[in-house]
């Protein structure tokens, strides 16, 4: 049987040692009436059949080709060296580093991750990772609630709809009210009466791609005695003002853009970085630097009194396993690219997104918003977003994340561009939009 070492002799030897006469005898305490039900599972496959089956499944997916998909995940440059180093089996098959003497690999890498995230966000303390951006935002809201002892939060509609959905799920149980601030011209206005709110949560760039005035939102939050929780795309921070610089108390987000493949949505990882004062409220694991008995620098999980395995019912969160390996991918990737490489990616994606917008406008397309955007923007469409997306897919172009009706923009889709987008990719997109009747003006011109 695959993966099971024991030969019949081994089993016999083990049973003798234990003093029972069959493996089934080890399960005598299971309710007899329930034992060995017949369960419907597909028959076992050998490795060759398995891989053939999976390749066939993968072949009925469509990947590759020009892609302009964003909305929380984007295809960015990942140098070959990143997975080669991050996916070494010693990292992949290690458990949480509870024995630091033999886990310096994971511990030091995590410490370096915490350092890089603090640098990117301009804040003091990063934890070792969370599940994803959405759960990180929910945990940030709970942190703010604990810190301010308030029971309401303000969230901008510019925060990713799925993130807000997760926020709602998490907060409802604890009876915390959520007030959603509508956008004006695609940006978050200064919220009315943040008084009483534990925090203001805003996303930069926001879900529609627009750049928010985070500093003003921060002032409003602080005046109201609450915190500013900035939801950020970490890659954008290679060029954008870091949350620490505009007064954010907590920076959270999803780390996929730092060096993980999109994987149909996961795994990526979430991150949370806070001001020093919030350290004790921080959920999740933390790696600290110390020394061993011989004075060598070494790293160890620390301040665990915040965590469930020590504090149980009183822990800051129930999180146990976090997203170590995907965070390691980001760590290696950031170290591979350095500040210059990361900046080139961010600036390159801005450049390509604006280039695309210009070309679309030139073809008579209309952007739904005038607000300045980063590397993603909202395009008004004739047909519903999901129809547009399917039409483009049928022409081999992955693009057109539908924009929800909650934004009152009519039919619209998000278009993102990264440094990987080429001029020819844009040709393909424009061609497909044209063919789909989305570029009326163009039709005429080329008609």
């Amino acid at each position: 049987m695959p993966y099971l070492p024991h030969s019949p002799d081994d089993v016999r030897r083990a049973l003798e040692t234990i003093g029972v006469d069959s493996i089934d005898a080890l399960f005598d305490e299971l309710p007899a009436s329930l034992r060995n039900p017949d369960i419907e599972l597909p028959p076992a496959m050998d490795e060759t059949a398995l891989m053939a089956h999976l390749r066939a499944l993968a072949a009925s997916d469509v990947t590759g080709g020009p892609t302009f998909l964003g909305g929380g995940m984007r295809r960015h440059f990942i140098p070959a060296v990143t997975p080669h180093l991050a996916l070494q089996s010693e990292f992949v098959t290690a458990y949480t580093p509870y024995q630091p003497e033999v886990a310096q690999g994971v511990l030091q890498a995590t410490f370096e991750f915490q350092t890089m995230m603090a640098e990117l966000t301009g804040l003091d303390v990063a934890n070792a990772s969370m599940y994803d951006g959405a759960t990180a935002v929910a945990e940030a809201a709970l942190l703010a609630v604990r810190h301010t002892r308030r029971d309401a939060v303000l969230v901008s509609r510019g925060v990713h709809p799925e993130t807000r959905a997760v926020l709602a799920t998490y907060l409802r149980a604890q009876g915390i009210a959520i007030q959603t601030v509508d956008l004006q011209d695609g940006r978050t206005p200064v919220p009315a009466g943040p008084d009483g709110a534990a925090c203001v949560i805003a996303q930069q760039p926001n879900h529609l791609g627009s750049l928010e005035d985070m500093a003003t939102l921060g002032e409003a939050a602080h005046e109201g005695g609450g915190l500013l929780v900035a939801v950020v795309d970490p890659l954008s921070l290679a060029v954008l003002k870091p949350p620490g610089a505009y007064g954010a108390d907590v920076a959270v987000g999803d780390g996929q853009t730092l060096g993980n493949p999109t994987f149909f949505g996961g795994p990526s990882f979430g991150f949370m970085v806070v001001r020093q004062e919030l350290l004790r409220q921080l959920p999740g694991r933390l790696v600290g630097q110390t020394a061993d008995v011989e004075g060598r620098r070494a790293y160890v999980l620390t301040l665990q009194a915040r965590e469930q395995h020590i504090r149980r019912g009183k822990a800051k969160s129930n999180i146990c396993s976090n997203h170590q390996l995907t965070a390691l991918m980001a760590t290696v990737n950031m170290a591979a690219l350095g500040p210059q490489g990361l900046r080139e990616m961010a600036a390159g994606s801005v450049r390509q997104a604006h280039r695309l917008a210009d070309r679309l406008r030139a073809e008579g397309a209309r952007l739904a918003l005038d607000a300045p955007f980063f590397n993603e923007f909202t395009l008004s469409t004739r047909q519903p977003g999901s129809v547009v997306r399917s039409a483009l897919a049928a022409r081999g172009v992955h693009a057109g994340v539908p924009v929800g009706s909650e934004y009152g923009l009519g039919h619209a889709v998000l278009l993102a561009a990264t440094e990987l987008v080429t001029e020819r990719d844009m040709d393909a997109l424009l061609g497909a939009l044209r063919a789909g009747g989305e570029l009326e003006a163009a039709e005429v011109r080329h008609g």
Partner: protein
Amino acid sequence: MAEPRRGSFPSIYERSRPGRRAARPPRHDEPDLAALLGEDQLRDDAPRLPEVSELDLVRHFTQLAHRQFSIDGNVYPLGSCTMKYNPKVHEDAARLFQDLHPYQAPETAQGTLQLLFELQRDLGALTGMDAVSLQPAAGAHGELTGILMIRAYHEARGEGEQRKVVIVPDGAHGTNPATASMAGYSVVEVESDARGEVDLEAFRRALGPEVAAVMLTNPNTVGVFESRILEIAGLAHEAGAQLYYDGANLNAIVGRVRPGDMGFDVVHLNLHKTFTTPHGGGGPGTGPIGVKAHLADFLPVPLVVRQDGGYGLSEDLPHSIGRMRSFYGNVGNLVRAYAYIRTLGLEGLRRVSGHAVLNANYLRVKMQRAGFRIPYQRLNMHEFVAQPPEGVHTLDVAKALLDYGMHPMTVYFPLTVKEAMMVEPTETESLETLDAYAEALGEVLERAAAEPGFLAGAPYDTPVRRLDEVRAARQPVLRFPFADEAG
């Protein structure tokens, strides 16, 4: 003069030099960012990220990998963690799906959706549950999902105000009580009896109309099967409580008895345990949940469903608790779990639990012969609890073991047993490995007796030796101390 190799290992920041880099993204003309984004939106100076050559980068992370124990390199019998072999073919399998974008048109993701749909089906079959969601990103996340569904269920039945308590055994994993409070419940712990099972009397006393849920792990965290589980389920249900199954220990019984048949209403699975997805040094995991029909309406959205001849994602579930995360789940890991189930089939999975329990009992006997105490004198399931002889500390034994290239068992958990050593060898270890492990442990005890103080000094042969953990907590240094900072 200390061995030079034994000095402090460099930080990536100490390998950094201005102007160096390993990787280069595609070039584009530099855009006028101030004009496009607004001057005030730009950061003043670059983040201090490492600047290293590609070779220095490779050396750094290759050497770090050598400073790390792993299943691939070391026996790693962490109780409750199921550190079994992670098949290499799964790594190749997962990569087949890594380029899909969560928002690409569903008709272009039919293969992946079919895989997810079939995995929902197979996990339901294995747990005896009627509906499954693959969303949760870890076991604890699955717990929260499940408890929130139970909460929604009670609310829907008008008992939301009445039921405010979740019962967990005193030996429960920390995530259970932590989850309960996160879901807005208060926690009542019930002690366990001399045989390591839930004390039925105490349990009866704890039950009542205010109880929303009972969270159990079965086999429980001392590796004992709750033999009166049907009675427990009956009592819980009589009291109107829902019974939650923490699936972290499913490896002991997979294919042999199903949580659903035992009377559990909700179950979460740690695919990074029973179903071999790698732990990755602490995640990403996956904690799918399965529920009985009466809870199906409350599942998180979206669900993978059959749709006009193909597969799709449905948000159409009016009573859903909502979303628990963005997108659909940790697909990369779900592919691995799917591959595992398809490789072993029912017969194979039964053998998995059989050999897991066989190995655990074998090692228990070997460790007892080597001089360790076994608090619960009975057959155990996939793991067991042991204690060192009087006067010897579990921590010292654990550290001494490191010098053998062997990873210790889980130590000081569960909290209900003094100096607890919780050992879970899993089914993928050979008997020779277990013999060597027991032998090493025996040697450690002999040495402890022969050379007082030796154990306290261990480990001696690891990349670093015992750490000053107090200092780490008293003066936390949580990021690299740059020269210009008070390090």
